[in-house]
């Protein structure tokens, strides 16, 4: 590998990579992301490798996440440009024979959304993709994350060459400032301002850090970027180092992401070989390298000051906010910390300019945002949308609405620090400031959709308990305040709530928000406060009527068999682990005797409802009292 030192050389090398890539007339891109691998992509990869048997004309890519996890494993065949979904190893020979060799489309493997009877072949046509605009994720399905040449074939490291060889650090900085790039890690802090602050902070050394701790439970954006396109993050960080005057770099990766770690470490190695990291990068005179540090599974370590402590090898406890990390961060030296997605945006801004970036999204929140759209939504997956798109568009057009045609109840953005929004907020645009105003926040990109079968009090309790677990325990408001809130929430969901609990929750929440030390505490009451704000009636139903509208809270529900739908097949009786289900003598149905659940024995494990082929198992709330049930049963018998 020759050392690249001029723009020309980089360009020529990119051309070379492109020619090498173009040599393959056919491309098979198999999504090898975490979700697809969990449902069989690994076996598929083996099947493809066997079927292709070293075939020279086909480039087989094990790519990062394509996004449409719902119907995985996904396979894209180019130049036919068709998307095959739910592919099984047994389909592989047919794909090779028909689609690759003859260029035919295999109808059976195309995407068919539930309900409307349509068939989609191409990526652009599938509604899930049609409304997205991919910048950061654009290359995910096109490149092999383990190949730097693939990345360069699509212009990779061109922005780095441009920045280091044609622009001064000030110009790069100005470009980022003009682009109004805001931090994608949660707070939405202006990245340009942060960079400027760090650059002008006094000190010998400046640290450039990438936050890949992704602590939000239920979100996997950063993982997918690191796994699918690790070089874009490296490129962004080196450009950042150029603009800021960074001397060394770190990436702090969550321990739960061994796959992302592997992809990124490999990318670092390649970048070093190509001279994009190390000494005298591209003969610009800058030395810079990135070290990998693994987290230990602690949400609070995503917070900047805690992250620095953890990097130093200590316990990840945050410190008071008045100390600015740009001046005194890692080892008390100037430090610039940005999120994975923030860094991944940088090369695009340098390549295409601030003006282009501002043309996407809204005035105050330009660009795109990656979300992991999960929960009770029809199309679960990883999406990238322009800022300013409404929640409704995201959930109903991209997400395809609620699973099984049920009714929408709430959407939680911002993870444990964010809030729940209701039906009436669906027209809100996705924008840092608008969401904060509504009592939620953008967060790092988790978007959890809840339907009528979700209990908001239960979810608020879930987040509060999560945060208690994760609170470092250093400051009192967060440690004790959350504990009390949780106690009240538990009481409410157990049917022991009292009317005054609402007031207590609100007061405690406000106190924790004001008095806590770090961002974890100050945002911790958000799920509770926002759900009280928009779903007060659900709380009141729990407290006053002992009723759980989502039919989730175990103390407030009971299971029954609908005598009119039960066919007497007895499947439920077989799976019941506590033998609470018995036949009713004399009640003949199509397939046997009607069954009944003995409420005194049933411990509400849900096993019967899962298996009932007739959906005859009903969940009632408020729970039907035991005495009442006894009367009924004896009467029937």
């Amino acid at each position, binding site marked *: 590998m020759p050392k690249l030192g001029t723009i020309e050389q980089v360009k020529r090398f990119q051309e070379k990579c492109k020619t090498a890539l173009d040599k393959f007339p056919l491309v098979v891109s198999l999504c090898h992301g*975490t979700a697809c691998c969990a*449902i069989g992509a690994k076996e598929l990869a083996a099947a493809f490798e066997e079927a292709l048997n070293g075939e020279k004309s086909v480039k087989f890519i094990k790519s990062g996440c394509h996004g449409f996890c719902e119907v995985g494993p996904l396979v894209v065949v180019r130049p036919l440009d068709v998307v095959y979904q739910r592919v099984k190893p047994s389909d592989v020979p047919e794909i090779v024979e028909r689609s690759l060799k003859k260029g035919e489309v295999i109808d059976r493997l195309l995407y068919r959304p539930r309900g409307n009877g349509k068939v989609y072949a191409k990526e652009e046509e599938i509604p899930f993709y049609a409304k997205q605009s991919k910048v950061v994720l654009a290359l995910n399905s096109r490149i092999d994350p383990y190949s730097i040449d693939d990345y360069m074939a699509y212009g990779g490291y061109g922005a780095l060459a441009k920045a280091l060889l044609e622009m001064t650090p000030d110009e790069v900085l100005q470009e980022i400032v003009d682009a109004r790039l805001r931090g994608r890690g949660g707070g939405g802090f202006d990245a340009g301002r942060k960079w400027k602050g760090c650059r002008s902070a006094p000190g010998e050394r400046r640290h450039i850090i990438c936050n890949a701790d992704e602590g*939000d439970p239920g979100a996997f954006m950063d993982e997918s970027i690191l796994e699918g396109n690790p070089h874009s993050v490296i490129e962004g960080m080196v450009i950042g180092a150029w603009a800021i005057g960074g001397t060394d770099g770190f990436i702090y990766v969550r321990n739960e992401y061994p796959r992302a770690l592997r992809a990124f470490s490999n990318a670092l190695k390649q970048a070093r070989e190509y001279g994009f990291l190390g000494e005298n990068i591209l003969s610009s005179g800058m030395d810079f390298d990135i070290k990998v540090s693994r987290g*230990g599974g602690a949400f609070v370590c995503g917070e900047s000051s805690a992250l620095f402590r953890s990097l130093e090898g200590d316990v990840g406890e945050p410190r008071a906010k008045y100390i600015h990390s740009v001046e005194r961060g890692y080892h008390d030296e100037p430090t610039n910390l940005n999120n994975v997605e923030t860094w991944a945006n940088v090369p695009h801004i340098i390549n295409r300019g601030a003006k282009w970036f501002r043309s996407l999204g809204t005035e105050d929140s330009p660009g795109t945002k990656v979300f992991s759209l999960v929960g009770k939504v029809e199309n679960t997956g990883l999406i990238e949308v322009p800022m300013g798109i409404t929640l409704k568009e995201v959930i109903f057009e991209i997400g395809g609405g609620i699973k099984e045609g049920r009714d929408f109840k709430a959407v939680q953005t911002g993870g444990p620090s964010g809030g729940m929004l209701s039906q009436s907020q669906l027209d809100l645009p996705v924008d840092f400031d608008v969401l904060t105003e509504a009592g939620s926040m953008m967060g790092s990109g988790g978007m959890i959709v809840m339907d009528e079968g979700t209990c908001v009090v239960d979810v608020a309790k879930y987040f509060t308990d999560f945060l208690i677990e994760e609170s470092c325990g250093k400051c009192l408001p967060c440690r004790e305040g959350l504990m009390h809130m949780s106690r009240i929430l538990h009481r409410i969901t157990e049917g022991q709530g009292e009317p005054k609990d609402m007031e207590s929750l609100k007061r405690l929440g406000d106190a924790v928000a004001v008095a806590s030390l770090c961002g974890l505490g100050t945002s911790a009451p958000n799920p509770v406060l926002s759900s009280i704000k928009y779903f007060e009636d659900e709380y009141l139903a729990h407290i006053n009527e002992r009723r759980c509208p989502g039919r989730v809270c175990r103390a407030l529900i009971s299971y029954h068999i609908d005598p009119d739908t039960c066919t007497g097949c007895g499947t439920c009786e077989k*799976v019941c682990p506590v033998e609470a289900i018995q036949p009713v003598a004399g009640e003949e149905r199509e397939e046997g005797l009607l069954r009944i659940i003995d409420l005194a024995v049933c411990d509400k494990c849900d*096993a019967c409802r899962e298996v009932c082929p007739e959906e005859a198992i009903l969940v009632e709330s408020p729970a039907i009292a035991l005495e009442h049930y006894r009367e009924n049963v004896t009467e029937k018998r």
Partner: protein
Amino acid sequence: MLAVQEKFNWLPPQALDYISRRLNVRKPRIYHIATFYKVFSLEPRGKHILQLCMGTACHVRGAKLIADELSRRHGIHFGETTDDGLFTLERVNCLGACAIGPILVVDGDYKGNMTTNRANAVIKRLKREATEEDAANA
């Protein structure tokens, strides 16, 4: 410490002594770190490592039902190893595969769309295998 944890699946006291001596760091600090981060375990772990995703997406899809099932029915509780040394249950937050939640990872193998019934079946199978093995060894 991460390396030790990975090798032995837990942090034996001897190893912590050694780390303390070698790095010249006092033991209370070592323990502070070992108890702060979730990846570290101060007890030996079971033969089968179960990890249940309690991320938000899995939670709204019913992960709690499975957690309850494991603890009520099988005496397997979060963060604990069963007395017979067969199972250790860990709680993890989002494995990046929310589309197929709830997820139970059994010895590194992702099992998606988990239900109470399927969880029961998995546990029963592993228990049966263990008894058979014991019988074969006896």
